[in-house]
């Protein structure tokens, strides 16, 4: 059995679809953020796999993933700061309750 490119793309596709499902159905903001991380990670896997299989001599996909991980960390930190601030104001973090920027 030869493990080809598509064997890596299918798990990452399923991971991405799980992220879409979670992002649309969850109400808790942190759960939505977790789903977002799933989607980001699926994309990272795709970059690395395409780099490895189609252009093994160069490292563009690897560096793109490296920078994407750094940006994801920054984005998560800011998002969690905002969520904690919303929690402090409203005492809950459901997306449907957070409809006003000021109160």
């Amino acid at each position, binding site marked *: 059995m030869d493990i*080809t490119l*598509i064997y890596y793309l299918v798990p990452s596709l399923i991971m991405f679809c799980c992220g879409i499902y979670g992002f649309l159905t969850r109400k808790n903001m942190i759960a939505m953020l*977790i789903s977002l*991380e*799933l989607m980001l990670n699926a994309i990272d896997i795709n970059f690395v796999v395409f780099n490895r299989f189609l252009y093994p001599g160069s490292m563009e996909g690897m560096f793109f993933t490296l920078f994407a991980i750094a*940006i994801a*960390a920054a984005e998560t930190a*800011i998002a969690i700061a905002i969520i904690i601030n919303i929690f402090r104001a409203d005492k809950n973090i459901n997306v449907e309750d957070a409809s006003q920027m000021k109160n």
Partner: protein
Amino acid sequence: MESAGSIIMYWIIALSIVIFSVLTVTTRRILRSATFLLFTLFAAAALYFKLDYEFLGAVQIAVYAGGIVVLFVFSILLTSHPGHKSERLVSHRKWIGVLAALAALVVTGGALISRCGLACASLPEMSNPTMKTIGAAMMGTGSEQYLLPFEAISVLLLACIIGGVVVARKR
């Protein structure tokens, strides 16, 4: 042709990615969801190791599993009671989610199958990128070298630190 051990490793990694990512979005306890996310990220790191990108796998474990998941657990414990279950989903909301996910699956899967010639490329030989080449590529200014994005990200991280402190501090 790959060795039997490599194929077994592949199936373990692929199955754990699929199972844990499904569990991440279907479990009703948020803390468990974060734990399953951790397992998914570990499986992705194992995938990077398997594809010979050791540095990337190490970064994935250090930044995602060591940083982001800890941040998630920390904020979950701050904002909800442990053991708290989210209420059952309303069915129309659930169906919207299932429909969108299936639509993405069908469209992307169709695109994958229609490019089957490309998608059946087998694993080419590659020498692992050493730390020396990675460092040279990250710190150089020539073609295929990434000093500018590296510096841009360091500025972004600084802005993120300041922004996080400003947003989350007590008034």
